Structure formats: C-alpha cells, structure tokens
C-alpha cells in the first residue's frame, strides 16, 4: 500500500536531465508540481461536492431534521430558506460552490457567527497540536526504530526485540483518547504538573501533544525498524561493509537516507490521520479547535458549520499528504518521476 506514490510518479517518464538538444528541456520538477497542483484541485472539487451532499443526503426532510425536534413550522421554513432547500438541487450546488469560492459559507444556526470567522478562530489551535505532534513523532520514531533494528539485526538481542514489540503493541493498542484520559488522570489530576483543560498557557500544549504522539511513535518506529531491517539486507550495505566504512558512517550515509523515503511514504497517511486524532483529543482537553467545533456542530445539527469544518479538515489532510510528497521528492529525486531508463 506504500509505494503507490512512487509507482505513479515513475509511470510518467519525464525527459532526463542529461538529454541533449538545447531547446526546451522539461525540468522534472515542472511535471511534479503540475501533478501535485492537479491533485490539490481535484481534492478540493471532491471535498466541495461531498460537503455539499451532506445536507441533501439527510434521510427525510433535511429542513425538519436540521431545525431539530419540536421546531415550529416557521422555524423549519426559516431553516429551509437559510439552507436554500426550497431551490432545485443544482441551483443549491451552484450557490454553495460560489459561496465556498468567496469564503462565504453562511452563518452558524446556533451562534449566528459567520462560518469563515469561526473556522479562522478555531483553525490555529488544531494546526498547533497536530503539526507539533507530527514533527515530534518523526524526530522520535526514526532514531528509535533504527537503533532497535541495528541492535536486533539478524536475531541478536532477542530480549530487546521482545520488549520493543511488547511495549509498542501495548501502547499502540491503547487509543489516543484513552491515553489522553489517563494522562489527565495522572499528570493533571493527581500530580498537577500540567493543566487538564483549555489552551491558556504553553504548558497546556504538553498533554494534548503527548496524547497525540504516543501511538504514532509506536507504529512509525515499528515501520522504521522493519524498513531498517530490509535496508540492512541490501547489497549496497554489503558494499559499504566491503569498503570497511565502520558502523556510524554506514548507518548514517547508507542506511538512513534509504530509510527516509519508505518511512515517509508509509507514514504520510498516519500523519494525516493525526487530524482525526486531534478532533477526538480536543474533547478531552476542552481544546478550542476544529474538532470540538465539529462535534458541537454535529450534535446541534449546525449544518453550515459542519460543512465548513469538514471542508477545511479535508483540505488540511490533502496539504499534509502533498507536503510529505514534496519532502520525498526533495530527499530523493527519483520520486519526481524524471528518471532516466535503467539499462
């Protein structure tokens, strides 16, 4: 499930950098950027359609459901007008799309606040913990997985192998929100080291980020460990051994670079899933981000807000995945899809 990005890229051969004929040499980055931009636009289109469909797909009369139990006919009618449900679906769609493009997603049914404003106030909070967690996860799990793989290569140090496997399975099998709850019980309620809720001080960041990271650190360090084991068996590692380069040089120059590509490709989805994690975690810490926003909106059937937040979360996920692709291409130009043929 991993190399799809690479495979897709290599399917479209660009013109090799060394090709002659001085006129117009297509730089491999041009194709890469165009494809990624195309992907972004496509995702945006799909997300717009999906978020639009949320309302028409509500079983029964969307206006009645959206207005909530015990709403008066007048309230239902106002909701109907607000959502434009009295118009033909196609007109509704056109209105929705033009609204999205003007960053006007309507107003919240509950607070009357504009959805765009609401998103702009909540967005930084979610981005803060999600991005911090992603960076920390990568910084921790790559060295951890590599060291464990090197120490346990070829069946050495079985005890370390077993402890690593046991601990990572155990922690990973505890969902983030359970970890979060337990962290609050231990560090906020019992030890009182960090605040349990809110986003007031810098130390408020510690527990949510920790809760988000722990699981992914376990999965990704397992991935890194497995990939390291694969790389250690490669011929070019034997070449480096044949050149008697020493452990440090071999691991830093011959193992690490070849690890980063597969690890990032595999981890891209896990990192994007941090957004989903953040949504849930925010409930535990009363974190005023998009997650809390959408949960409240769904419970209150605040459809304009639901649409807006789903749209922005989807775009964020696309952005994270595109960024991973970009980093991959910078690290290893073969991912650009501009490779020369291998004779």
């Amino acid at each position: 499930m991993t190399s799809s990005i690479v495979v897709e890229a290599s399917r479209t051969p660009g013109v090799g950098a060394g090709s002659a004929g001085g006129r117009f040499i297509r730089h491999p980055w041009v194709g890469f950027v165009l494809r990624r931009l195309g992907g972004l636009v496509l995702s945006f289109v799909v997300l717009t359609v999906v978020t639009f469909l949320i309302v028409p797909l509500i079983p029964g009369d969307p206006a009645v459901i959206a207005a909530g139990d015990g709403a008066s006919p007048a309230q239902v009618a106002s909701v109907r007008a607000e959502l434009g449900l009295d118009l033909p679906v196609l007109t509704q769609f056109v209105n929705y799309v033009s609204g999205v493009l003007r960053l006007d997603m309507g107003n919240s049914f509950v607070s009357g606040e504009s959805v765009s404003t609401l998103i702009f106030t909540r967005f930084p909070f979610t981005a803060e913990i999600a991005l911090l967690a992603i960076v920390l996860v990568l910084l921790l799990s790559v060295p951890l997985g590599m060291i464990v793989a090197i120490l346990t290569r070829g069946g050495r140090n079985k005890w370390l192998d077993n402890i690593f496997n046991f601990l990572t399975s155990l922690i990973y099998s505890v969902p983030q929100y359970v970890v979060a709850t337990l962290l609050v019980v231990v560090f906020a309620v019992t030890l009182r080291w960090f605040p349990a809720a809110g986003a007031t001080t810098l130390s408020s960041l510690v527990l949510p980020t920790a809760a988000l990271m722990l699981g992914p650190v376990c999965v990704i360090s397992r991935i890194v460990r497995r990939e390291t084991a694969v790389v250690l068996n490669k011929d070019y590692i034997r070449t480096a051994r044949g050149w008697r380069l020493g452990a440090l040089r071999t691991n830093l120059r011959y193992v690490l670079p070849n690890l980063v590509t597969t690890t990032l490709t595999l981890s891209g989805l896990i990192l994007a899933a941090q957004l989903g994690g953040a949504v849930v975690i925010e409930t535990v810490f009363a974190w005023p981000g998009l997650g809390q926003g959408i949960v409240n909106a769904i419970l209150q059937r605040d459809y304009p807000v639901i649409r807006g937040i789903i749209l922005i979360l989807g775009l964020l996920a696309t952005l994270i995945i595109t960024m991973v692709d970009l980093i991959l291409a910078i690290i290893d130009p073969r991912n650009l899809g501009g490779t020369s043929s291998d004779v």
Partner: protein
Amino acid sequence: MTSRFRSKEFWTPAMITGGGLLMALILIAIIAPSTMKQAAEQLTPHAALGPSAEHWLGTDDFGRDLLARALVATRLTLLMTAGAAAISVVSGVVIGLAIWLSGRRVREIALRILETAVAYPSLIFALVIAAVLEPGVSSAVIAIGIAGIPGFARITANLASAVSSSDYVVTARLLGVSPVRIAARHMLPNMAEPLLILSATVFALSLVEISALSFIGLGVQSPEYDFGRLLNDSLGALYTQPVEAVGPSVMIALTGLSVMLIGDALAAHADPRAKRSFFRRVLDRNRTVPLAESDTALVRVKNLRVSIPGRQELVKGVSFSINPGEVVALVGESGSGKSLTAMAVAGLPSEDLAVDADLLRVGDMNMLAAPDQSRLAKEISIVYQDPGTTFNPSLRMGSQLTEVLRTHLGMGRAEAREVIVNALASVNITQPAHRLRQHPHELSGGMRQRAMIAASIVTSPKLIVADEPTTALDVTVQAEVLRQFRRIHREQGTAMLFISHDLAVVEALCDTILVMKSGEIVERLTAAELAARKVTHSYTKALLAAIPTLELGSAPATSGAPTS
C-alpha cells in the same frame, strides 16, 4: 488450515495471550449482560463511592456499579465492532475483486479514486456520515464500516493483482475459465491468509474508531452504553472520581491488544523470515598469522567450512591458494558454495553463517579474526554480482566511489575525486567528472559495473574478489567488463579470485580453475588443461557441454560506453 492450528509453531506466546484474552472478552460479552445488568443499570442511593470490596471500581453518580457497567458494555462494543469490521471487510473484498475483474481503464480510475479516499483520515470520513445520519448505534456501525471500505478494497485489489500473475491463475485463464470463477476458486483461497491478518487489523481499528465516535458523543446515546460512552461519562467526573476512567480504558486497551497480538502472531507465522536466529561468531584472537618462509602464496585457505549453525554445512572443507598475480576462478552452479567461499576469503561472510578453517589468510591478515579495517579496505577489493543493487541509490556516485580513498587513505574530497576521475577514464567511462555528480540510477548497468571496477583498483589492492561480476550484464557489456579485468591484471598484476558459473567466461581470464559442487572442490584445472578440454570429472564435463561456442577473445572492440 486445520493442521496449522494443531502445529506447535502456531501457538506462540503472543497467539496464546491474544487468543486467551479474546476468548475471555467474548465470554464476558455473553455472560455479563444477563448476570450483571441489575448492578450495572439499577439506580441506587450509593452514589459516587470509591473502590471497595463490594464495588471494585466504585459507583457512578447514580449509584451504579462501574465494574459491572464496563463488563456489560463489552457485548454492545464487540457486536458493533464486529458489525463495522464485517461491513469494511466484505464490501472491501467485493469491491476490490470487482476492480480487478473490470477492464484496464476502469481499474486504473477506480484505483486512483481508492488512493485518494484512503488518504483521508477515516475518522473525518465517519464524521461526514455521522453528520448525515442521526447519532446512534446503527449509524456509528455504518459510519465506521463504510469509512473502512476504501482501505480494504485497495489492499484486496493489490493482492488480487499480485496473485493473478501467478502461474496457476495464468494457466486457468488460458484454459478459458471465467474470471469470476477464477476469482472465487483460485484467487480468494490464496489471498485468504493475508486478508485474515488484515481483518484483525480492521477489527482493531473499528474498535478504536467506534469507541472514539461514542467517546465524542456521536455514537451510542444514553441510556445505551459501550466502552466509548462510559469513558465519555467518566470525563465529567475526572476530578472527583478519576477511577471511573479505569474500567472502560482497560477494557478498550485489552480488546485492542488481544486482536493486535493475534494479528501479529498470524503475520509472523506467515513470514518465516522472522524466525531466523542469530549466533555470535567466535573470532580467532590473532589478527595476523606468522608466515612460513617457504609459503609465498598471497592467499591460503586450508579446510574452510561455512555452515548455518546447527543446521547444514554449505562449504565442506575447501583448500586452495592464490599466488601473487595469479587469477583463480571458482566455478560451479548456484548453491555450489563458490560465493560463500569467496566472501569468507574477503572477510564478508553473511552474518548468520559460521565460518571455520584450519587456516584462512590473505597476506598475513587472519581472516578468521577481525583484521585492521583500513588494511582490509586497501588490500582486498570486491566487485559484486549485480551492479543495479550494489550502489546506494540515494548518494551520488562521486561520494560513494571516493569513500575508501577518503576514509582509509585520508585523501581530501578534491584529491579523491581526481583519482577516481582518472580511474573512471581508464575503464572507458565517458564524461567521468559528470558521472560523479549523477545518482546510480542515471548510469547503465555496464557503466556502474565498470565504475565499481574503477573504485576497486584505486587503492592498488593485492587481491580483487569478483563475485560473478558479469552475470547480470548483457553479453556485449560482459565482454567489455571482462576486458577491463584482463587489462588490470596485465597492467597491475593484481591477484584475483573470480567467481562464475560460466566456464566460457573464466577460460580467457584465469590461470587456475577450481570447479565446485555441493560445497566441495571436485576438480582443479590449469587454463591450458581447460583449453585442451582435458577434464576428468563428469560434473566439469557437464558444465563444458553447457557452453555455447563463443570466442570471447575476438569480441569486437567497442569504443566508449554503451549509452543508457
């Protein structure tokens, strides 16, 4: 499958723990609701009690026993999880197979769509569905079930395409068996094992996500409760009654852990590589060996044995020597032990093999010990079989080819590059300075192999070990590479240990030919004897008979490099 469950290897500690845990949870799910419902749901005046002998985990604000609630919730949680996982797995397999069965164009588009769908966090996907449907048990199951479909469908489609290229499927297709029948009769059974392992993962994920939905209040609604709902209830009482979080936390963790252990154990069972065991090689303590004055050989090997510890001897007591400037060939079919012998001589045996000998020396370096690394790097150069995999794909050629010069000869970057540029030019590589800035994949196979040869001579080694250096190359490129070996030998007089399975290749290059079979040397020939076909062993005769008549010496001289 049934015999597998009886085998000892199947019941690893992980499998026993995971299986036992899951059985216990299922038992709880069956028994708890009928026996503990009263304690779990009856409102009593004993509200918000701490843990006691009567209420192990205390009671909640309504005086309900928290342990009983956690246990009773097991049934609903497991049923919901199983339902969602079933939706993901069944629809995923059907869609995945349908994609594989459809035409090429549809398949490519469908795979792209799945690709995009999989990239989105499934929880956000589930939120969309939860937003459309009213929160509740069935909408949670449907939301999580549907959110899991794309991932499983893609994995099924990928597995199907892998299985569909196997011989029996190709045969069945040629015989005109209908695609649907092939999928049902031939492919599904062969995909069953990986799909089963992945189903365990899907189950674990569904558990986490369904509980997540309930936890944030969008899944199971009061008065019903599952683990997620209970955990959500505990949030409000975290300060007054922190123990309330323990029950559902532990139950979610245990359920997830049991399924994950089972999945891991199944995966480990399916992948026998994981079972390889390590042994610590006992190294000779003396890094050098004293040389007898009469012993002028550069390499001396006496009674060399290479084995998989405790299992099988692969090289069974081989003895030979290489004089300075002599080119010795080790010839034999794959599995004859020739490469193992060569790598033992080069001091690079695979780490899971045991190497032992009465004597194994190169110069005065004791190859059974750990000789000085710099001496090893300078005095023994190695050229490998497949130039496509011997270079690090993520480093430029320049930094790799100059490694030994910089690490062991203390040269600066510029000086080392100059030496390598000259060496590359000497093996007929065009634009040598430009090549150093390229990555390995930008060079052709023949070019890479000649670059490897160039790197192998810059230290003026005493011995070059070449392990099937021409096998992975085209015939014309082979001739050019062989010519380089002969030129090096002619100009520098370097001794070589040349491994090949092809007598024709070694005939033109080597002074002495050792024929190996099943880990033993069965015949020793001089080049003249081989040229005159004076061979005695039937195995050598068979090898000779396999040579197509090809005169290597008269291969047309190609100037410059084959272009990529």
